[in-house]
């Protein structure tokens, strides 16, 4: 009994000491405003670019200082949801459009509609701006995007007698023909890492007139028609009728599938545009590669936009200052520098042009950057049940289809009935 009393006393003493030691260190109202900016930049060059922009801001704005809080992409959704609920979210939040829409719907993000300058609004392509507009409110500034790009082994294409496509776009039929022409012996025409195919199919569906999602929020519904099924069916036909896709790549991630491109096992590979920088760095010296023009379906070369974004915590005491900082951050030269470092596509036209002028044709940049004008709104961003449907219904259904365990009819049925089940 005596020892229990001692233990309780010790606990109380410890707690008191801890409270005294760790009490809030917030200063009073005097002094400069400090904005916390949770940044997810992961590449050393992008981290340096971010730090440089923030440093420039801090020098120019002694009364509003920005403090970078670096964070990783892994687990950041859980971190943010806890921070929002705990009232401890940073002022400025870096994340992707697909994930912040739900935060906006739950009322955690400030409406930036009136705080975004006309200059910036006019500089952001409509499809990209739509991806950060929820219920007519701009809830974030888009900063960086990636598109899906075809990288080709020029030597293998030329050896097969294929003329390297040029021009603004190339059709999916052309891709299929080139893949067939270059498939010979141990070489396959295409390698495409489709272990998690939903994102690619959803992003590229607009080119075929597919949107998958109609409506928004809880009222959203999935529609699977010709436009939605066109790309999965094309991939299936190339893999099993033409046998022009290296089969193992269908079960690999994009990064894994690139190894067979380096080894000359595949003549082409579909990758995120940022891979251009990796290919330039890692590909064997004798690999003569080229980025092919953006792929266009019957409806055009559109791809659904899921940009990285900067948004403002609605509970921030300095929403206006935060928006001003984001305006500064998204200036042409800043976005160009950041996207060059990250090997991504700037979300503003002026930054895309600045980067094109600076980098020219090097490493396929002009082709990749040109695709920045082809982004369109992604309806799936605004459907509440999309994330759950993607993980539990769509991805397994596509995997079964690409493994020939189901046919087209079953795939379409699984995609729609699966949505109905999780939204009931």
């Amino acid at each position, binding site marked *: 009994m005596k020892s229990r009393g001692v233990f309780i006393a010790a606990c109380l003493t410890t707690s008191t000491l801890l*409270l005294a030691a760790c009490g809030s260190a917030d200063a009073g109202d005097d002094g400069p405003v400090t904005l916390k900016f949770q940044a997810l930049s992961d590449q050393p060059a992008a981290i340096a670019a971010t730090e440089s922009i923030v440093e420039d801001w801090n020098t120019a704005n002694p009364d509003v200082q920005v403090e970078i809080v670096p*964070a990783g*992409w*892994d687990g950041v959704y859980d971190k943010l949801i806890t921070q929002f609920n705990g009232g401890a979210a940073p002022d400025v939040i870096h994340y992707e459009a697909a994930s912040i829409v739900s935060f906006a719907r739950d009322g955690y993000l400030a409406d930036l509609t009136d705080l975004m300058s006309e200059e910036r609004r006019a500089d952001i392509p409509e499809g990209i701006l739509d991806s950060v507009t929820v219920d007519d409110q701009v809830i974030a500034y888009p900063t960086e995007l990636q598109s899906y790009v075809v990288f080709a082994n020029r030597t293998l294409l030329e050896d097969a007698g294929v003329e390297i496509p040029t021009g603004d776009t190339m059709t999916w039929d052309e891709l299929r023909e080139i893949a067939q022409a270059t498939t010979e012996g141990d070489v396959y025409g295409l390698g495409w890492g489709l272990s998690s195919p939903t994102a690619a199919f959803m992003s590229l569906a607009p080119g075929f007139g597919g949107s998958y999602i109609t409506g928004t929020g809880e009222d959203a519904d999935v529609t699977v028609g010709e436009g939605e099924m066109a790309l999965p069916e094309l991939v299936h036909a190339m893999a099993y009728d033409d046998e022009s896709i290296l089969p193992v790549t269908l079960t690999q991630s994009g990064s894994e599938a690139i*190894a067979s491109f380096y080894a000359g096992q595949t003549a082409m590979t579909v990758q995120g545009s940022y891979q251009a920088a990796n290919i330039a760095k890692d590909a064997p010296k004798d690999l003569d590669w080229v980025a092919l023009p953006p792929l266009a379906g019957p409806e055009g070369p559109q791809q659904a936009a899921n940009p990285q974004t900067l948004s403002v915590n609605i509970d921030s005491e300095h929403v206006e200052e935060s928006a001003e900082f984001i305006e500064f951050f998204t200036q042409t030269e800043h976005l160009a520098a950041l996207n060059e470092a990250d090997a991504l596509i700037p979300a503003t036209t002026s930054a895309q042009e600045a980067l094109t002028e600076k980098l020219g044709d090097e490493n396929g940049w002009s082709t990749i950057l040109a695709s920045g004008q082809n982004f369109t709104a992604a309806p799936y961003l605004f459907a509440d049940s999309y994330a759950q449907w993607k993980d539990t219904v769509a991805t397994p259904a596509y995997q079964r289809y690409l493994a020939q365990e189901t046919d087209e009819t079953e795939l379409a049925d699984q995609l729609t009935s699966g949505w109905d089940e999780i939204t009931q």
Partner: protein
Amino acid sequence: MRTLVRPAQYVALACYILFLGFPLLWLLSASVKSSGELNSLVVNLLPQEWHWENYAEALARQGLVHSAANSAIVALASTALVILIALPASYVLARLKGAIRTAGVGWILVSQVFPVILVILPLFLILRTIGLTDSLVGLTLVHTTYTLPFALWMLQGYVAAIPVELEEAGAMDGGSRLTVLRRIVVPLLAPGVVATAMFSFVSSWNEFFFALVLLQSPENYTLPITLSTFIGGEGKVALGPLAAGSVLAAIPSIVFFSIMQKKLTGGLMAGAVKG
């Protein structure tokens, strides 16, 4: 036939060690490969050329060494707290009968039921109220709380394995309760304490989620949080630097284990003599 048994045992042992050690060997190998080689179809355990830049890049990024120091502080502090609390508590739990023991066991079992994601929000709010979010002290308390139930369960098993008759014999020889505990129970319990300490240390050293949510300032980040920044968006992974960072991250843990391993062996022998 009998002469073949010993070589077969060695072969089996070698296979087992290789099986256990292969991931570490692969990690070491990946840490000195260039990104070109890591993205090649050619699979070599030994790198074609040694690429030490990964270590330089890992050390240069995001304060890896500082994060390791934070992890060490939190892991050692929470291990000490866990042992300090679990040692007497486990004795009580193992030796006492009745309602207290039942309640204790119930608490241990119930505490293991809740998933981390469920407890993080209330925990965050409590810690925020007392000013302990974004603090190594707060994280240490959380790690201690999270590890304690299992450590308690583990240690009470070791206590239960010590025959009560030894304590009774000590008492009959004139030893007081404290003397019996200090001279008989504690030495026999040493291997269990060491094993529990190892478990606590590893739990805290590797813990990611609580640290991710509770820590806000880079200067407070622990090693798993810093290593997670090597994995970027859009599927980008800095594989070489990540492997190098993971190798460096394993070193303090290996040092701790090698020290504790000696204690573990010593404890076992002490127990054998007294038993």
